[in-house]
């Protein structure tokens, strides 16, 4: 059988060219692999969900006599199937894990300088992947059409609508009309969530992996000592493939146990949409944006070329836009002349490491600001706008200074001539 296939497909050639590729070994590469595993599980569980989900808000009658939107009823049906609730919960948890893992993967890239020559392009593809993963997760959030999901999605609709000149059109394209209310919203979000955005993700993941295979991993530093100038690793087949099976099984095992024990979005508890708006917050990966919206005063509003620039646009679009632009420009600002082969140690780059830590604190403090109303209700000092502004701006600054001084004290001055 093997000989028959080999004569026709040159399997030996495939083995020597592809399956003998060397895979460097380092635990920090697993953050990217966890992101990939989460995506695979999302696709597999998503296939099961699409087979049972009805993307419509037409009214249907439940066996208990309640009249609810069809999308909501179909999610109740999925939850009633044997193992159905666990699969839906696993889908929900994997979406959260994919974004968290992609974010930590990006932090690893930033801390080890892996965005430098020749990997600038792949870094940009990775940034696009992170952005697309967040948008894909957001489009899935409204689909159960429960009271919580509808209210949380409305915040995103408001941000999209607030973009000057193009906001209304963008909101129409994304939501198929006014959200909530338009009958086209759920079918539109459904097709984006299960078809167009996953296709985009698959294409970008394929490109990301292809470029990575061509350019090779950045290697752990010790490889320079063991095999200078070469790629040191284990062959893709059989070792790396067996390792991937082990890690994927580990992912599925741990995440299924978590998904079964903690149902992430129990629609029965939230109930179908009602005219009363429940007090909700967007998902955690939007909480920092929501926090900025909470602390930007409503007086920050002006007119520009006939459009209104308001706090929603400033907090929801301008700030993330500026951060995104800085991220895109980074590999063209922090450069090196020779090809980067080995991971840089964070301790050797105190400025860069301190900036990354400061960015992390900014996200944390901005997310904390998302609880402003809760703090006010409890009479906490954290409910004050001035305090939250101090934390959002002062926290990162203080982090940078403390981190930079500590690293200089413990690791000495950075070598001369090194960027950042």
């Amino acid at each position: 059988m093997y000989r028959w296939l080999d004569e026709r497909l040159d399997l030996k050639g495939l083995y020597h060219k592809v399956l003998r590729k060397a895979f460097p070994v380092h635990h920090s590469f697993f953050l990217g692999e966890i992101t990939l595993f989460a995506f695979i599980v999302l696709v597999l569980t998503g296939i099961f969900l699409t087979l049972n989900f009805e993307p419509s808000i037409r009214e249907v009658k439940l066996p208990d006599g309640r009249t609810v939107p069809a999308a909501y009823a179909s999610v109740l049906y999925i939850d009633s199937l044997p193992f159905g609730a666990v699969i839906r919960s696993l889908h929900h948890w994997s979406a959260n894990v994919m974004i968290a893992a992609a974010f930590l993967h990006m932090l690893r890239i930033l801390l080890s300088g892996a965005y430098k020559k020749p990997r600038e392009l792949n870094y940009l593809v990775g940034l696009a992947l992170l952005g697309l993963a967040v948008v894909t997760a957001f489009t899935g959030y409204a689909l159960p059409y429960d009271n919580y999901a509808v209210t949380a999605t409305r915040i995103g609709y408001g941000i999209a609508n607030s973009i000057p000149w193009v906001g209304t059109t963008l909101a129409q394209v994304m939501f198929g009309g006014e959200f909530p209310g338009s009958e086209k919203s759920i079918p539109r979000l459904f097709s984006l969530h299960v078809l167009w955005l996953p296709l985009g993700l698959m294409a970008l993941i394929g490109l990301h992996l292809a470029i990575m295979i061509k350019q090779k991993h950045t290697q752990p530093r010790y490889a320079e000592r063991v095999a200078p100038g070469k790629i040191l690793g284990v062959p893709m087949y059989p070792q790396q493939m067996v390792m991937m099976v082990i890690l994927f099984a580990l992912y599925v095992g741990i995440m299924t146990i978590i998904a079964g024990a903690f149902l992430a979005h129990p629609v029965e508890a939230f109930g179908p949409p009602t005219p009363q708006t429940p007090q909700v917050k967007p998902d955690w990966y939007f909480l920092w944006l929501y926090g900025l919206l909470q602390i930007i005063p409503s007086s920050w509003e002006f007119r520009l070329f006939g459009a209104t620039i308001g706090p929603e646009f400033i907090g929801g679009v301008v700030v993330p836009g500026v951060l995104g632009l800085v991220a895109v420009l980074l590999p063209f600002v922090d450069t090196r002349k020779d090809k980067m082969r080995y991971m840089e140690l964070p301790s050797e780059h105190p400025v860069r490491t301190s900036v990354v830590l400061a960015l992390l604190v900014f996200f944390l403090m901005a997310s904390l600001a998302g609880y402003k109303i809760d703090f006010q209700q409890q009479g906490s000092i954290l409910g004050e706008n001035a305090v939250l502004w101090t934390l959002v701006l002062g926290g990162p600054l203080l982090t940078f200074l403390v981190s930079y001084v500590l690293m200089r004290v413990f690791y000495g001055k950075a070598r001369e001539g090194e960027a950042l």
Partner: protein
Amino acid sequence: MYRNDPILPTFALILAAGLFYAAYLDGQHIARLLGHVPEKLSVGQIGLMAFGAVLLLYGLMGLVSYWLEGMELRPGRHFPTPSTAPVAAGVILVLLLTALSGFFVRLLVYAAQTGHNPTWLQGLIFGSISLVVAALFGIYRRFFGREEVITEEEKSEFPW
């Protein structure tokens, strides 16, 4: 970033435990404010647990990689020596896998017949099946698989 050490993965596991505990405390705080235990996780709890899960996975994978692949690679081949203990462990794990699979099917039949879905048990059993599969492959990789470390030229003709 220097070598495939077990230190960072171990710290990731400790941090993961901290994040899960923070999520638990958040739940306690919310329950105190509401006067009852809510049926759902809060946004903060989901965020903490998502990062906790990633760090838990990262820590476990890092330690598995350290166990199977070592701290530093050295070019060469290594052939495993036959041993009885891993075979015995494999047989026990296969028996466990069979028992868990049978129990999982019974659980599904029970849910279909009664309409009662014990999600925590379903998740636990299916997750355990997957973990046993991981352990079986781990034993194969550690005690039966050919160990090989290679070097490759930086320039290659794949994929183009």
